[in-house]
């Protein structure tokens, strides 16, 4: 899933002697260098200013003095709760929709086209518009107020297209032979789905899950007016809770002298994103391997 095997394509000739060829080669290499330079600049800056402020205490203490001092413990908890709510809602919705699109509808049928089209639009909706929507529907209309629940539900709408797309791709990658064999054995479609198709499509689902978690962890604008700013330890899902991203934003923009802790929080966030990414890929690889060798 990570690296599609490179197609057998001849490499192009190493460039001729005429000036256009040389100029383009130079330009392409310098763009790549520039890009690498910017990457190193950003990451280097985060690490250089963030690492000195990181400690175990930073992860386990409550923020003090508007976040200038202390740690981010309640903010980590809120972030995990928001992502948890988001996944609890978006996983069943997303997997169900993907199963419908891949297994129970023809690609050109009107319902499938409508669902697909609306998901395409959903994928492009700006995050601040999700924030407006979540504020109007969950916080006010449904009376959840500024809460972890509102934020998580808003994010669930947001990650849905990513989740559906990769689960659907995972299902489509399952060979048709599996379906035919299951039908020949007289398995019901329900059993086929639970016992064969979904297990075989797990890599796609896991990739979708990782991308979804990544998107949810990275989101700020949709949370400003749904889960809110409160930096206390949340007592329930109906409490307002501040995510890591909102904490970075608040420290950078509204708290003079909050930069050091904003750096440290940014390092925590980026590290979290990296670790989740790598861990899940590994688990998916191993899981799939065992599954196939056993059957």
């Amino acid at each position, binding site marked *: 899933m990570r*690296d599609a095997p*490179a197609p*057998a*394509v*001849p*490499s*192009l000739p190493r*460039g*001729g002697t*005429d000036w256009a060829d040389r100029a383009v*080669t130079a330009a*392409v*290499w310098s763009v*790549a260098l520039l*890009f*690498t330079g*910017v990457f190193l600049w*950003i990451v280097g800056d985060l690490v250089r200013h963030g690492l000195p402020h990181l400690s175990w205490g930073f992860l386990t203490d409550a923020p003090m003095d508007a976040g200038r001092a202390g740690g981010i413990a309640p903010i980590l908890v809120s972030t995990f709760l928001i992502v948890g709510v988001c996944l609890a809602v978006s996983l069943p919705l*997303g997997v*169900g*929709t993907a199963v*419908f699109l891949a297994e*129970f509808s023809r690609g050109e049928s009107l*319902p499938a086209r409508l*669902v697909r089209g*609306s*998901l*395409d639009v*959903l994928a*492009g*909706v*700006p*995050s*601040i*518009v*999700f*924030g*407006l*929507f979540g504020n*109007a529907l969950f916080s006010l209309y449904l009376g959840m107020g500024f809460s972890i629940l509102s934020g998580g539900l808003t994010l669930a*709408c947001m990650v*849905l297209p990513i989740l559906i797309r990769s689960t659907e791709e995972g299902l489509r990658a399952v060979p048709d032979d599996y379906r035919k064999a299951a039908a020949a054995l007289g398995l*019901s*479609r*329900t059993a086929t*789905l639970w016992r064969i198709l979904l297990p075989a499509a797990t890599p796609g689902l896991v990739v979708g899950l990782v991308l979804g978690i*990544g998107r949810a*962890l*990275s989101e*700020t*604008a949709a949370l*400003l007016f749904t889960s809110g700013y409160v930096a206390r330890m949340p007592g329930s899902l109906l409490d307002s809770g501040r995510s890591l*991203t909102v904490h*970075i*934003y608040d420290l*950078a*923009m509204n708290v003079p002298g909050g930069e050091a802790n904003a750096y440290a929080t*940014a390092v925590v966030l980026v590290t979290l*994103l*990296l670790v989740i990414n790598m861990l899940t890929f590994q688990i998916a690889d191993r899981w799939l391997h065992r599954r196939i060798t056993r059957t």
Partner: protein
Amino acid sequence: MSQPRGDASLIWAVRGLAVASGGIVLLIVAFLALEAIPALREVGLRRFFTDASWHPADGADRGAFNLVPMVAGTLTVATGAVLIATPLGIASALFCRFYAPGALGRAYRRLVELLAGIPSVVYGFWGLVVLTPLIRQWQPPGQSLLAGILILTVMILPTVALLSESSLRSIPAAYLRGATALGLSRWATIRGVALPAARSGIFTAVILATGRAVGETMAVLMVMGNIVQVPGSVFDPVRTLTANIALEMGYAMEVHRSALFVTGLMLMAIVVVLVAANARLGREGRRA
């Protein structure tokens, strides 16, 4: 063949879930419209473009609702970023696919993927503490249209680069072999064969990047200074539609709040246009 009884409930369940997922967009439009109606009724769409200024907190009659500076801000920053990011992104994709030796190309691709995964608030923070002070030394005040364009460029470059690269990767190998057999040089092959063949994929990349640039909130909010004015130069502070929502939603009441939902509807309309353009391109690409 008779359907086992359990299957019927499964089919209805997945249909129900699919309808729910597909319905979210309608729900979003419905709630934006519902909240926007008071402003549309009491202020009217015309005044959003003809009023003297943006002072929405004074109510429908005495307030002013001119969105033109914010629309201009959004359009200039998005256009600037897309204009810079498109050639750089394509060059980066060409590097990955045709210029870099195998292992370097893969490592570079991984680096671009990492850049794509950095949260926008982190880009914004970096822009605020590193980029804007640099611009301030050159041309105060630093928080400016230029800072917004540069940060957005860095943010949408991975989108253009990764999607263009996968489009270049899917060119039939025979095309490239044919070009090589004709004795074309590397650049001639890219210009004459590879780029035209990957054209529709590259367009898609640019359209998606445009959507991202128009909708981006946190990064532009943090580096652009957020002053409501039509920018006179790239060093002027500017406020975008998205930043305006983020800044004012916290305290907006009544018509003011409703006016912010009108801007939300505008952003939504832009997204629908971009998605429709993309779908159309996709159909033409398949036909060609």
